[in-house]
């Protein structure tokens, strides 16, 4: 793969590119869905994707293709170079300085050399066991959207005209169930999942299925509540959605476009002192880890918010230069060029037992699901549909639905009154249980 990239970069140079970089991804994936015990859908795929970015002087353009034949690569190079002739020059554009490039590919243990070696029947069986565990756990589980198993292995290679080349492999495995619970004409769906880079570390199908069933069952009998301003507790998955909004607002392109509620806030207090948000791409075997970023810079650990103070933005080379700062090695690639992405982003665990946090609330909401897109990244204004459990006198009392929660992200983060000790990395973004002192819950 590195050879292919080398040949393409050489071709780009011959056609007039002053510099260029390119990456290729090859992946193979399988997924199986079982519904009510029967195989529903099985998918096999083999894909590849080749992308090139060229600089002609200070102008840039990108092109990508899924066809890796020699003719196609030649066309790709020609198209990228000719597109770069119509874009405007930008003196800040260009590859990162060569001395910042990763010197070696850190061994992060991201692939599973043995885990994929499982027959389609055995994979289907994992999905079936996961769904069955949900279906059999309670008579009120009457239907299902299925149990799913998926695995994917991929190979990434990246090279530049100024001397970088590196490649690495990744694996991932996922298992989930989405049962439907019904009672007195009411239907509620919920789900549970696990994703890992090593198959051996997947939670058992039975455990995932039973958790999914518990989650669907606890939604039965949902009521609406009266509009009020109350404390709101986010379960770990929902707390993770809140730190994603912080990461979006801290990303370079949003900042230099003034399209972020964190513009000009570096070094300032943006959250309660109990809030520390970290992005760490170096955790061995973790889902968001990678040895180098989308521009060949070594990944590292970045303290984004330290005890409430915004300490770092998330930058690629270009957005860094726009802001007069160095890249924080968060470049990500897609076919259109470079963007910014997090690696393993997490809210550091606090001291509180999550049960203690619930007990501390007299009257409030425990959120287990959020829907909709009501987040304004420019102002931080926040308004989303919520599902959860109502807290009465420190107890989870009854399920609630058809309500919204609203506030402003900057104020919400400053109103954090408790951070749980239950941080578990289930996904690329992770958080412990989080208590926000006051938000508006709209209902009847």
């Amino acid at each position, binding site marked *: 793969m590195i050879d292919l990239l080398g040949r393409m970069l050489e071709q780009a140079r011959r056609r007039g590119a002053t510099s260029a970089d390119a990456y290729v991804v090859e992946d193979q994936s399988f997924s199986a869905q079982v519904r009510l015990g029967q195989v529903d*859908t*099985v998918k096999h795929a083999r894909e590849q994707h080749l992308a090139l970015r060229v600089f002609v002087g200070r102008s840039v353009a990108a092109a*990508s293709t899924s066809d890796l034949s020699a003719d196609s690569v030649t066309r790709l190079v020609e198209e990228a170079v000719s*597109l770069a002739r119509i874009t405007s020059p930008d003196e800040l554009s260009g590859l990162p300085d060569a001395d910042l490039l990763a010197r070696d590919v850190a061994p992060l243990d991201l692939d599973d050399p043995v885990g994929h070696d499982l027959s389609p029947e055995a994979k289907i069986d994992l999905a079936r066991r996961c769904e069955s565990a949900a279906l059999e756990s309670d008579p009120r589980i009457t239907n299902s959207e299925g149990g799913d198993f998926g695995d994917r292995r991929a190979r990434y290679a990246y090279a530049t005209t100024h001397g970088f080349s590196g490649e690495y492999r990744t694996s991932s495995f996922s298992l989930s169930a989405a049962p439907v619970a019904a009672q007195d004409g009411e239907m509620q769906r919920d789900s549970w999942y696990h994703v890992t880079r090593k198959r051996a570390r997947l939670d058992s199908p039975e455990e995932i299925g039973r958790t999914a069933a518990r989650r669907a069952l606890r939604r039965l009998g949902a009521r609406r509540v009266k509009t009020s*301003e109350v404390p709101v507790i986010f379960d770990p998955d929902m707390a993770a959605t809140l730190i994603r909004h912080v990461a979006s607002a801290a990303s370079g392109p949003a900042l230099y476009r003034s399209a972020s509620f964190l513009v000009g806030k570096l070094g300032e207090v943006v959250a309660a002192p109990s809030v520390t948000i970290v992005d760490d791409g170096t955790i061995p075997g973790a889902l968001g880890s990678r040895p180098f970023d989308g521009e060949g810079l070594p990944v590292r650990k970045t303290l984004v918010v330290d005890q409430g103070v915004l300490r770092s933005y998330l930058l690629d080379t270009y957005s860094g230069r726009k802001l007069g700062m160095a890249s924080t090695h968060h470049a990500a690639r897609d076919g259109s*060029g470079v963007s910014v992405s997090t690696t393993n982003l997490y809210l550091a665990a606090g001291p509180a037992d999550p049960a203690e946090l619930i007990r501390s609330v007299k009257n409030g909401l425990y959120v287990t699901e959020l*829907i909709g897109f009501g987040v304004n990244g420019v102002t931080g*204004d926040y*308004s*989303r549909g919520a599902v959860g459990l109502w807290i009465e006198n420190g107890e989870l009392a009854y399920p609630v639905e058809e309500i919204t929660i609203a506030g402003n992200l900057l104020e919400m983060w400053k109103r954090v009154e408790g951070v749980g000790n239950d941080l578990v990395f289930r996904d690329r973004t992770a958080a412990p249980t989080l208590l926000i002192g006051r938000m508006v819950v709209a209902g009847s």
Partner: protein
Amino acid sequence: MLARPERFFEDRFGLTGVAMERLLGGALRGRVDHADVYLEYRVSEELVLEEGAVKKASRHVSQGAGVRAQSGERTGYAHTDDLALPNLEEAARQARAIADQASESAVVAVAPRGRPHDLYTLAEPPISADLNRKVSLLGQVDKTARDLDPRVRQVIATLGSEDVVVLIAGPAGWTVGDIRPLTRLNVSVIVEDGGRREIGSFGGGGRVPFDFFLEQDRWKRFASEAVRQAVVKLGAVDAPAGTLTVVLGPGWPGILLHEAVGHGLEGDFNRKQTSAFSGRLGQKVASELVTVIDDGTIANRRGSLNVDDEGTPTARNVLIENGVLRAYMQDRLNSRLMNTGPTGNGRRESYAHPPMPRMTNTFMLAGQDEPADIIRSVKRGLYAVNFGGGQVDITSGRFVFSASEAYLIEDGRVTEPVKGATLIGNGPEALTRVSRVGHDLALDEGVGTCGKDGQSVPVGVGLPTIRIDEMTVGGTQV
């Protein structure tokens, strides 16, 4: 025109109708209920202007094939981005593996009934238009937006175009092709006033040529709408929290229908009985003022298709008629299992995805009321005219959609603008509270993208001005 996609794949990849027939016949005969091959070649291009210049340009080519075999409720799907015949044979073999557990049923798949439409044959597809003209248009958008208001700090204008050639081949030797142009111009502006910042966005497009943006100075309207919205939001007060009467303006607020009833009426959820609308055909699910249509046959619209991604011609399907639920939207698999017919709603994001029932252009028919009278009829409420995205839990029926431009209605008059707020409701109930329907049906400008199960497809929505007597508004003003 119909021969063109066939010749395209034959000339470029040597994939003839005979080869397709042999592939499906050989690998799958006698083992499955349905099998098909979907070939796709897609070229797309994106130009992005920011800070007054087009600094980002990209072009992408993707090609591939998806082979599907179905038996009973089972689907085997394999896809490859290498269109060489041996790869397709391997894909067919993998798709068939699932069918090996099937009954003895023979291949019954028949050619789609009806002829494909001709809704978007263009003399010059948007992707072929001169790049310099496109760059120059983006420059004009930038200048116009900045000249409109000194508070404009940033203009981001994006012009995307694509051309997709598809060919669907069935086992009895039938093939159906389509060539689908699509383009969209989007303008976002950031305005700043005394430390307060806001964003406004507007755009449009469809299966139209590049000149569409120049006709009637559309590009100018997109730029000025983006600026207007951003400036209005600068002066917005906190939105109310709680249950209110809501008046929705015409056009894009039709996203209400997409979320409240559209997804819940897709055949797969109803076959599986996981939708809040399952088993409710013939029942009243909306006020008698409400008739909801899904129509994939409107010329040049973003959500329209000559044929769906299984080769079935699209149709105008009445989903809800005078408040009564009439039909679900279907693909081949789910209509076969529910003993009805496909409705031309079998869609997929690309060759990498199996088709499922999806919406096309979903809208409510116009009523009798004067829009101004509808607003006048409200003592205290919310008038919402622009929205961001929406989402629905099809099982519980709860749906949300987020207003990005909204105003208070006080004593029958539109007063202050309010900050963005999410509106939440229950699908089977929300439309029963529609008490007024205006005569001003409008379709959206051509910007919608619908996500389901990880697959995105372009769609359209439409709505006249309507009054909903009770909806929960997720503001912060208690």
